[in-house]
């Protein structure tokens, strides 16, 4: 819908090699993000959402993590094959990341001002100290924090304010892509909406594309242009927001949407998805969702289904042809 392709991930595979076995965290993820658009990445805890976001910036701790395979093209250049020097130019400048827990994501012994100035300074060698500070103050104001708090330390801020500081750091260099890893999960519900609105406003103003990681389908519905559903390290369904919400094709997506409480439907009980996600050290050979799936047949456990196009860029990884309506 919006602009040309900015990020293209091809067949990304990431594993964690631990003493208890190999964790197959990402098993061939491909997706793309266009300029200025927001992609929602939805999945349960442990589905590989954070691994994917960290993988894009090569922030996976090695060991135990290891990028086994795949390519991450950002503006045509493969991030995974870049030199460290080039990678440092991309991080925080062209692609930046907001982490899940604001309480632990800021350095406790540096003032928030120093932490914002630092990212500006490292990517703008020509600026003087005063100019850097001015920019940091401007950024702080943009996220709704008054300038006189610039010399305070993180412990003097509340969780929501800390997350605003982290967003200020992430957006300080006007990035083309923002990776937001559950930016509101750790916050109070009342603050969540504020912070989310602010991210949305700023990214629209700056024409920044965003991958919004969330397990909250409500948040995704409010913010995203496209949605990718991830399960056990694979994208199981992706498409436009409307296609996914109105016409879900994968039984897992159907299940996720059914498990949202609704005031308009007359349901007494929520419909949770039965069972748990498979152990990522020991994935089943076929479709990883098959053991929990209402539509599963013997064919499902033979091989992992391919992503197939159901029209209009709506890709589904399922051998059945179900529609959301039948599932209910």
């Amino acid at each position, binding site marked *: 819908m919006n602009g040309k392709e900015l990020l293209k991930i091809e067949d990304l595979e990431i594993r964690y090699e631990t003493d208890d076995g190999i964790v197959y965290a990402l098993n061939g993820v491909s997706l793309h993000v266009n300029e200025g658009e927001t992609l929602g990445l939805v999945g349960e805890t442990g589905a590989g959402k954070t691994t994917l976001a*960290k993988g894009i910036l090569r922030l996976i701790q090695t060991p135990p993590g290891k990028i086994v395979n795949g390519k991450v093209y950002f503006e045509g250049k493969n991030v995974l094959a870049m030199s460290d020097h080039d990678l*440092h130019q991309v*991080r*925080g400048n062209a692609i930046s990341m907001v982490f899940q827990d604001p309480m*632990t994501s800021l350095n*406790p012994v540096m003032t928030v001002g120093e932490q914002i100035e*630092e990212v500006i300074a*490292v990517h703008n060698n020509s600026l003087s100290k005063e100019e850097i500070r001015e920019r940091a103050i401007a950024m702080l104001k943009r996220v709704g924090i008054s300038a006189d708090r610039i010399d305070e*330390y993180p412990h003097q801020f509340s969780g929501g304010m800390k997350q605003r500081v982290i967003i200020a750091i992430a957006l300080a260099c006007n990035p083309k892509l923002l990776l937001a890893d559950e930016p509101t999960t750790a916050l109070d519900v009342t603050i969540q909406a504020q912070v989310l609105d602010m991210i949305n406003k700023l990214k629209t103003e700056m024409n920044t594309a965003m991958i919004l990681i969330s397990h909250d389908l409500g948040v995704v519905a409010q913010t995203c242009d496209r949605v990718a559903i991830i399960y056990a390290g694979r994208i199981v369904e992706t498409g436009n927001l409307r296609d996914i919400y109105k016409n879900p094709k994968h039984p897992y997506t159907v299940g996720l949407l059914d498990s949202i409480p609704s005031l308009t439907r007359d349901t007494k009980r929520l419909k949770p998805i039965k069972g748990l996600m498979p152990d990522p050290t020991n994935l089943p050979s076929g479709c990883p969702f098959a053991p929990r799936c209402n539509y599963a047949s013997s064919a499902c456990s033979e091989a992992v289904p391919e992503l197939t196009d159901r029209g209009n860029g709506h890709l589904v990884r399922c051998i059945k042809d179900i529609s959301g309506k039948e599932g209910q």
Partner: protein
Amino acid sequence: MWKYILKRLLMMIPVLLGVTFLVFFILNMTPGDPAAIILGDQATPEAIAQLREELGLNDPLLIRYVRYIIDMLHGDFGESYKNGISVAAQVLDKFPNTAVLAVAGILVALVIGIPVGIISARKQYSALDNTSMVLSLLGVSMPNFWLGLLLSLLFALKLGWFPSQGMGSGFVPLLRSLVLPAITLGTGSAATVVRMTRSSMLEVIRQDYISTARAKGLDEKVITKRHMFRNALIPIVTAVGLQFGTLLGGAMLTETVFSWPGLGRLMVDSLNSKDIPMVLGSVLFMTIMFSFVNLAVDIVYAFIDPRIKSLYSKAGFKKRRVVVA
């Protein structure tokens, strides 16, 4: 902050009282009559009895203790039984020698300990890390005086590079005479500093804000220096402070091995001759030194970590700690 420091200084009073009482009590329990020791083998029982009376040794323990404390409060730490020279003068005379050795020893510990600890943590489980861990285990377990003897055998007696005994006067001779005792003292401390630096750095390396720093596009060197090391510093400063406090009190074994004219040797000599005022005076001095170093360490904390600083300024005399979530 000032309130905190004042509070800490006041807290030293009971500590000093406790230490003096304990030492007073223990020395009193040890066999041997100070009067007999002062007068020597030839003394008559009458002379000994008379001296005991003069020194007030016949009074009950508690009275003698109170008398000592009152004198102490007047700045009088008594005279040595052995040579009659004032205790304070002797301690202050030896202290600079010990201080020089302590500073040199701690420098050796820092110069070796901190870089090796940082590199060990950054390259955890590498050959370098494993080697430094084995060596530092060796350093911690090896008795100081034994290392001192070995160093002295090789570098002083066999190779003749450095003097084996005493303290040189003049800058260059002083430095030369410092080398062996400083290395002897420093290696043990260095081993502790390496282990503390490594474990503290490893804890910080896994923190979320390190990921934030990486996501900013910072260079690993900058991350290590600016983000990791400063956060890892508190336990390191604690360890270094404890080591330094101990060294300032005089390293008895090392000073004895190298005949270094410091507090440690003064204390050993006084103990051997049951010179009670001398022992009391030097123990008291060590305690004061140790307390001051600890206080200094706690003040340094506030400059490293702003959270501790705000805690200090909140904690006055009453505990009115307001925890803001």
